[in-house]
């Protein structure tokens, strides 16, 4: 019950400050833009293919979804602490775990709705406006895309709670959140590439692809790109993915493990936090 009351406040906050609206619109506009103008560099304007659209969308979501999730949740613990309401809430019949789950449920719903509304409306537009598009492929790939983007967002929400429970000040939490984003979205892949280049032959090549599993954004991209087109040209670290002996189910499971581990870490750091 209490989990729901906390979640409910987060959801109504998300509606009140127009976060939900803003994120949904942003996703819808970007998705529609990518669908229609994504292939402009190749000299043509207009919808090219579902595979190309999803591939571009996945690259976009890799940047955007973690950032939005971190922004949404980085102050959820430390912010309450600064306002004195964390202290107060903990004198209520409400456990720290319940508080955390409530926040997660609220933010999770906002993120899931925004992803669904934003990317879903883009899918709808494609389905309605593009002549003879394969509706079944469209549906399957967008459902997979929306679900995995939501899951990716949840993983980063959970990371945001870890930071927020560790940080003593809101500004620290904000800094840490940017750091986390930077590491997973930019640094990790570069580091992995560097590793590939410098470790020629020394590291067991069978092991390398598994390193991708240490970055949820890479798992997300694999899920969407691999699911589409066997001959899609994979660039950068994604080329490792083709050697990964994990099926779709394995990738989904990896993302869920990420979520579970991060939520557990958040719970642990919130428990350890001194009030």
């Amino acid at each position, binding site marked *: *019950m*209490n989990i729901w*009351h*906390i979640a409910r*406040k987060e959801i109504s*906050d998300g509606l*009140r*400050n127009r976060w939900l609206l803003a994120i949904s619109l942003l996703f819808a506009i970007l998705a529609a833009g990518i669908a229609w103008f994504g292939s402009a560099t190749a000299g043509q304007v207009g919808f090219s293919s579902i595979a190309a659209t999803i591939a571009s969308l996945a690259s976009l979501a890799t940047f955007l979804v973690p950032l939005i999730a971190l922004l949404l949740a980085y102050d959820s613990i430390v912010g309450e602490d600064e*306002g*004195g*309401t964390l*202290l*107060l*809430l*903990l*004198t*209520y*019949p*409400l*456990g720290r775990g319940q508080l955390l789950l409530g926040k997660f449920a609220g933010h999770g719903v906002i993120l899931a709705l925004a992803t669904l509304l934003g990317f879903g409306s883009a899918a709808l537009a494609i389905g309605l406006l593009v002549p003879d598009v394969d509706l079944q492929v469209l549906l399957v790939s967008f459902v997979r895309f929306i679900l995995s983007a939501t899951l990716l967002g949840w993983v980063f929400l959970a990371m945001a709670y870890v930071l927020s429970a560790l940080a003593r000040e809101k500004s620290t939490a904000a800094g840490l959140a940017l750091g986390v984003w930077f590491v997973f979205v930019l640094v990790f892949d570069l580091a992995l590439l560097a590793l590939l280049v410098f470790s020629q032959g020394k590291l067991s090549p069978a092991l390398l692809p598994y390193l991708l599993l240490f970055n949820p954004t890479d798992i997300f991209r694999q899920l969407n790109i691999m699911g589409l087109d066997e001959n899609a040209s994979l660039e950068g670290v994604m080329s490792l993915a083709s050697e990964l002996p994990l099926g779709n189910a394995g990738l989904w499971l990896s993302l869920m493990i990420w979520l579970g581990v991060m939520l557990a870490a958040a719970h642990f750091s919130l428990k350890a936090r001194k*009030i």
Partner: protein
Amino acid sequence: MKLIELSSINQYYGQMQVLSNISLSLEEGEVLGLFGHNGAGKTTCMKLVLGLLKPTEGSVSVFGGLPTEAQRRRALGYLPENVTFYPQLTGLETLRHFARIKGASLSQVEELLDKVGLAHASQRRVKTYSKGMRQRLGLAQALLGQPRLLLLDEPTVGLDPIATQELYQLIDSLRCQGTGIILCSHVLPGVEAYIDRAAILSHGQLQAVGTLAQLAEQVGLPAWIRVKITEPQKWHDHLSGLGHQVRLLPGRELEVAAPNGDKISLLRTLLHEGVSDVEIHRPTLDDLYRHYVICAANTGGSL
């Protein structure tokens, strides 16, 4: 039944000891005033009772058990010393949110807003509230769910004189219904009449606990009898001669210290003479507080 039982608490923040050997209890329908200088450990005591801190040594029992139990928390109200609430919510929304979490009935919310004098501002965002209004909201919050135990950390901060008086009366009526209350305050005058016992903390040590009369007796601070008298100088000399502490005041007034037991006989002596007015000043809470805190400082009570 004992609502609170703290026994032999030693509390550390890291290496720093902030409470030493504290034992305190609170009965149903009792109001305990907790007084002490800044940093004496008052808020820390409250946090222990609330289960926000675990005692480093010693034990805390609230309603006969651990304070972290949900059922016990429902019966407990707390006004923290500084809380700003959620600036973007209105007073009504804020209180509803807390009522839901506490499992208190929502019909109570408007009643409480009315009780603390916020009914007119209940639809406004807390962001726009003045300090005193926020304090009132905090009070309303503490009263959600008709708690049997109420912890008020400096409840009068920011309240205007009339609201302060109303708060004291509210405390009185809650006490009559059997609520146990701990009240921390730096404002001593005015609170005396509403507390059953006072506890005075200094540097984490309990200097004294008891009713005001008990404390006054312990300390041996005299009452002062002030009389308007026809021949003050003569009486001044006479009483000083007998070893009394006497002060001459302007307007033919005389003040005599009356230590315990001396009061009645002194009054009798004085009333035989041309006395036209009598006032008796018993030692106030302020006097007692000063005495204990200064004593503690002199005997090196710091940890």
